[in-house]
Every structure is written in C-alpha cells, then in structure tokens.
C-alpha cells in the first residue's frame, strides 16, 4: 500500500554481495540504511500496532520480526496466528526492501502481492520476514519475501510483489 517518501537519498548501493549479515561490505552504509529504515517503519501506525521491528539490513536484504501476540490469533483452538498478520508483515518487509534500493526518496504503492501459505506458523513463536527487491526500473519495483521461524528454507509463507514508484497521493 501507499507509503510516504523515503528520507534523504543514500549513496549508490554497493555491489550486491552474497547474503552475509554478519560481514556486510560497507558496514557504515548499511548501519545508516538500517537506522533510516527503522525510523521510517516506526512512523507507520499499523506496524507499530503489530510491534514489528527491524531485525537487520544487509546489502541486498531487509529482515523484520513480528513478535507472537495473542491478539493476532486466527485459530483459537490451536493458537496459530492469522494469515492476515503474515500478509501485513510480508507487505511491510517488501516495501522496506524497495526503500532500501531507492537512490532518492519517492513515494511507493503496492500494485500486487501474492502470498503462498506453506504451513501454519508455530503458536507462541515470533515470525521473521526476509525481503529483497530483486529488480527495480524507473516505474516499478519487484520483490520476493519469505516468512519463517528459524531458517528461510523452512518457510511459513512466501510472497512476490510489485510496487509502483513515484506515486502521487499514494495511488498507483
């Protein structure tokens, strides 16, 4: 969905590196990006209501965490959180991944988001989302994301999304 423009532009992105959250090249750049994305995310009331927090940012990926909360339960018999909360997490994480790729601040809007639900989330456990913006053009950004507990290869859900860039009033 529509989101406000990013803060001042970051320098050009470093060459994409294989995922190495513990040893990113250009650590200062990445720390700065992480700080900016965290500030931006806290400005989104629904993300705050979900208590979503920025976990990590690498040269190519953004990681968010959704803590387990009884208010998010979709199946009271099992305590499993509702798919809608996973959708909100993946949407938020995918949008952050687009912002991380932008060279200058522009508003964006989700065009479409497809979610595959692979298995129920485990009751009582936080869900982590990892998103990457794998292609960006003048008008459109393309994202992939997974939601998981321990390892992205054992995912709860997978998503692909497209985002419109440079929207006015947040509409596609």
């Amino acid at each position, binding site marked *: *969905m529509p*989101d406000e423009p990013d803060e001042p532009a970051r320098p050009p992105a470093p060459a994409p590196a294989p995922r190495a959250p513990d040893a990113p090249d250009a650590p200062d750049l990445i720390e700065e990006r992480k700080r900016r994305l965290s500030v931006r995310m806290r400005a989104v*009331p629904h993300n705050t209501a979900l208590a979503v927090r920025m976990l990590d940012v690498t040269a190519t990926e953004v990681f968010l965490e959704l803590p387990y909360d009884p*208010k*998010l339960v979709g199946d009271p018999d099992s305590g499993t959180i509702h798919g*809608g909360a996973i959708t*909100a997490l993946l949407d938020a994480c995918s949008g952050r991944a687009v912002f991380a790729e932008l060279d200058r601040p522009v508003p964006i*809007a989700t065009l479409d988001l*497809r979610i595959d639900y692979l298995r129920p989330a485990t009751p009582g456990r936080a869900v982590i989302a990892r998103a990457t913006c794998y292609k960006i053009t003048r008008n459109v950004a393309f994202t992939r994301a997974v939601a998981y507990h321990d390892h992205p290869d054992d995912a709860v859900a997978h998503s692909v999304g497209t985002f419109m860039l440079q929207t006015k009033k947040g509409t596609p």
Partner: protein
Amino acid sequence: MTLVERMVAAKASHDFQRLIAEVPYAVWLGLTAATQGDELITTMRYSDHLIGNASLPAIHGGTLGALLESAAIFELLWRAETAVHPKTITLTVDYLRSAAPIDTHARASVTRQGRRITNVRIEAWQADRDAPVATANAIFLVMRG
C-alpha cells in the same frame, strides 16, 4: 467445541458475529459480518491502528489483505454444507486505490468449488462499491468430511 463446531452453532442461530468474536485477530482488526439480502458482507471498521501511511492518510495494505482473506473464509464457512475449516493456499491481492481512513467492506464469491480446492474472488470497497480499493483471488484447501 472446536471453531468449526461453534461455526455450525452460530450458523444455526443466524448469529455470524458470534463466530467472528471467537477469532482474536478478527476482533483486533474490527471485523464484522452481516447478511444483506443473499450476500454476506464483511466490514473492517476504521480505527487508527489500521493506518499504513500517516501522511495521506491511508489504510495499511496488509490489513486490506487480511480483510479480503477473512471475507473469503467467512463466505466459505457460511456456505459450507459440511463443517470444515478452509486452509488458505494462495492469496493474490491487487491494490487499486489508496484506502481512506473510513470503514472498508468486502464480499467474496466462489468461482469454482471442487472436491478439495475452492477458488474465490473477493472485492473490497469503501464509499463506492463500483470503485473497489482492492481485489483478490484466493485458493483454499477444503477437505470435506
């Protein structure tokens, strides 16, 4: 009673809202459902914690996705001859317009009902039903007992 058993009871008493009250996430989002003629309309009542963009302001896309998915599940539970809880396999949302900070409504219709798989199309709108803010297609696993 399980959720499905409570659903059967709620359906028998024509009190669908009682079923929604059993789902914490639906309560937190502010979902209500009511029949209008032969349609089941699910409504997400506006509240400030649904906002995704404070400067527009606009409702968070994730909550619209949750409304669309919930409307589909309610429709399937409402129609179901046999009590089974549908499992969402895929949900594909098209975001058409910025959603204003007001109530949002959704209506689901089954496009194909198979023995194991049900395809559902959902539309969400605000003031003008002919100008949907989002539409979705969802596929559910519905194993019949």
